[in-house]
C-alpha cells in the first residue's frame, strides 16, 4: 500500500534534528536555544503552557517562522532555507483549516493536484486516505457539513495522502469535546504507528502527551525543561516545573538534614521529618520534596509501615466519581493533596483524623 512507508534506514542520522534553534521576537521574548532530535517513526510531543515556545518551534519546522539562529535538519539535510511548500512536512492545524470552498474530496486532493498527479492515481490515493481515517463516503460533502471530529480526520487525511516525511500536529484535538478527544487520541496513535511516519505533536494537555508519545519534550519560557519517555517525565521529573506541570504534585520546601541507609532525610518547612528517595546532596541543601497525590496511602488501623507514617486531619474532600480528592493537614503544619480510590475514601468526612504513609522512594528530592 502506497501510504505505508517502510523503515529503510534506521541509521545514526535522526529523521529530524533541531540544533540550537533560537527565535527572537523582541529583546524580552526569546525562544531557545532548543536542541532536539527525533528518530524515524518516533512520536514526540512538545508539551508546555501557552507561550512556552512549543508552537513557535513547530512553525519553524513547518517553515512558517524563520529561526533567528540555529538549524533544522531533515535526514541530515538543512531545510531552514526552504520555503514551506518545498518541505513536504505535513501539518495538522488546531482549527483543521479545511478549505471551505472545496469538497472533502478536493480538500484531500489539494496537494496531489499541485503535484500534477494523474486523475486515476489521484482518485485512488484520495480514496485510500479517506478510507484510512474511516470516512470513505464523505467525498462530496463540504467541510461545514462535517462535525469537528470528522473535519479533523479529513485534515489528517489531507496531510497523510502526500506521504510527508514528518507529520506535525498543532494541538489538533483541543477543539473537540472530551469524549471525542479520547477516541481521536487512540486513533491518531494507531494511525501514526501504522504509517510509521515520524510525528511531532504540540499540546498543552499533559494526559494527551503521556498517552500518545514515545518521548515528551517539556518546555517552559522558551526553554526545554526535560526530554524523556512519559514514564521518566512522570516518575522522575527533572525539576519542580516538570513535577508541577505533569500530573498534580505536592511540592514542599525542605532542607536536607542527613542521610540514612538508602534514603535522604529531609525536614520540611513545617518541621516534618521525612525519609525521601536517595539523591546526591549534602546536609543543609535547600530542596523541594515532591509527592504524587496518588502515592499517599491511607492506613488502616494498626497497619505498620517502614517509613513516613504521618498523622493528619482531613481539611476538605472532593468526590470525583472514580476518585476522592482529599486535602489533608499533616500535623504539625504541612498540607498535602491526596488522591484515593472511591472505596477507601467513602467512609471519610472533613475533620476526621487519619493516618497516612508515603514510601521513601515516593518522595522525590528536587533541587530548588
Amino acid at each position: 500500500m502506497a501510504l505505508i512507508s517502510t523503515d529503510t534506514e534506521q541509521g545514526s542520522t535522526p529523521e529530524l534534528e533541531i540544533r540550537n534553534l533560537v527565535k527572537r521576537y523582541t529583546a524580552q521574548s526569546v525562544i531557545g536555544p532548543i536542541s532536539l532530535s527525533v528518530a524515524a517513526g518516533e512520536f514526540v510531543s512538545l508539551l508546555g503552557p501557552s507561550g512556552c515556545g512549543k508552537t513557535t518551534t513547530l512553525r519553524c519546522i513547518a517553515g512558517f517562522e524563520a529561526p533567528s539562529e540555529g538549524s533544522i535538519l531533515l535526514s541530515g539535510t538543512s531545510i531552514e532555507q526552504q520555503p514551506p511548500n518545498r518541505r513536504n512536512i505535513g501539518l495538522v492545524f488546531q482549527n483543521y483549516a479545511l478549505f471551505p470552498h472545496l469538497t472533502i474530496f478536493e480538500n484531500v486532493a489539494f496537494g496531489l493536484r499541485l503535484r500534477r498527479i494523474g486523475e486515476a492515481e489521484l482518485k485512488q490515493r484520495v480514496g485510500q486516505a479517506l478510507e484510512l481515517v474511516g470516512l470513505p463516503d464523505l467525498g462530496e460533502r463540504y467541510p461545514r457539513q462535517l462535525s469537528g471530529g470528522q473535519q479533523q480526520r479529513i485534515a489528517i487525511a489531507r496531510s497523510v495522502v502526500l506521504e510527508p516525511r514528518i507529520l506535525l500536529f498543532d494541538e489538533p484535538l483541543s477543539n473537540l469535546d472530551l469524549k471525542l478527544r479520547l477516541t481521536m487520541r487512540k486513533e491518531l496513535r494507531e494511525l501514526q504507528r501504522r504509517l510509521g511516519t515520524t510525528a511531532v505533536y504540540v499540546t498543552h494537555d499533559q494526559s494527551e502527551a503521556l498517552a500518545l508519545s514515545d518521548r515528551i519534550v517539556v518546555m517552559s519560557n522558551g526553554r526545554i525543561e526535560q526530554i524523556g519517555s512519559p514514564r521518566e517525565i512522570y516518575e522522575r521529573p527533572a525539576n519542580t516545573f516538570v513535577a508541577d506541570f505533569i500530573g498534580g504534585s505536592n511540592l514542599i520546601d525542605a532542607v536536607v538534614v542527613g542521610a540514612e541507609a538508602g534514603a535522604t532525610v529531609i525536614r520540611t518547612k513545617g518541621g516534618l521529618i521525612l525519609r525521601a528517595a536517595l539523591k546526591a546532596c549534602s546536609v543543609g541543601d535547600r530542596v523541594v520534596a515532591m509527592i504524587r497525590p496518588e502515592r499517599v496511602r491511607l492506613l488502616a488501623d494498626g497497619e505498620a509501615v517502614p517509613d513516613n507514617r504521618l498523622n493528619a486531619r482531613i481539611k476538605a474532600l472532593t468526590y470525583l466519581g472514580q476518585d476522592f480528592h482529599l486535602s489533608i493537614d499533616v500535623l504539625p503544619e504541612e498540607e498535602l493533596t491526596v488522591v484515593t480510590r472511591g472505596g477507601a475514601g467513602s467512609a471519610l468526612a472533613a475533620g476526621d483524623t487519619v493516618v497516612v504513609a508515603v514510601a521513601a522512594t515516593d518522595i522525590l528530592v528536587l533541587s530548588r
Partner: protein
Amino acid sequence: MTVSARSQRPYWISLVVPLGLYLIVFLVIPFINIIVLSFYTHSPTRIWTTELTIANYTDLLDASFVTVLLRTLRLGAVCTAICVLFGYPLAYFLARASRRTALIGLFFLVMPLMVSAVIRTFGWLVILGRNGLINSAIMAFGLDRLPLLYNETAVVIGLANVFVPFMVLPLMASIERINPALEEAARNLGASWLQTFRRVILPLSRPGLISGCLLVYSAAISAFVVPMLMGGARVRVIGRQIYDQLLISYQWPNASAIATLLVIATTCFAFAVLALMRRSARQEQGA
C-alpha cells in the same frame, strides 16, 4: 448575521421608511420624470412638446453615439481592471496588517475621497499637464514632452485614482474573513504563493471582488468631472454627452433617453453580477 428577516413589521418599517421616503421623493420620482421625458419630442423653441416618440432612442443608434457608448464601457472596464490589479495586493496587505497599520493605510486610501473631485483633478493637471511636473522633468533631460493629458489614458488614471478605495474596501473585508491558517495549510500542502492566491484567496474573496468591480464599474461609466477635465473634448463619454445635450444643446428628451439607457445598463450589469455572486455563495456553502 443581519437583522432577522422575521422581525416584526413595525420595527423594520421604522428603520427603512426615512431613507425610503427620501429616495422616492428625490430619486424615483425624478427618474420617472426622466423616463417620461425621454419619450417626448424635442422642440427648438419650447425644449420639448408632449408628443410621444421613440426618436430619442433611435437617434442613439447613430454611429457617433455608439462610439461614445463603447468608449465609456471600455474606459469603465479598463479602470475596473486597473483597480483590481492595484487594489488586490493593497487589500491583502491591509487585511493582514496589524490594526494600527491598517488604520493608517485606510486613512491614506480614503483621503482622495475627502478632497473634492474638481480639486483632485486639478492636482492631476498640475502633474500631467503640458508644463506639468512630469513633462518638466522629461524636458530637463532634453527629451520631448509627452502627451499625458486629454487622452483615454489620462481619464483612466484619473478614474482609477478615485475609485481604488471602492475596490479595496470590499476586497479587504472579504480577505479579512479568510482564516490565515488556510493560506498556511495551502503552503504546507505544496502551493507556491501564487497557487495559494489562485486556489484559496481568490475563490474565497470572490464576493468582495465582485462587489468591488460592481462599484467601480458603475461609478466609472457614469463619471463626469474626471473625463471632462482630464479627457477634454476628444475623450467624450456618456456623462459628458448627457451634460452637453442637456445644458448646451437643450436636447432634454435626448439627454433623458441617454440617461435612461445608462441606468438600465448599469442595473442590468449589477443584477447579472449579483446573481453570479449568489451562485458562488451557494457553491461555497455547499448547498
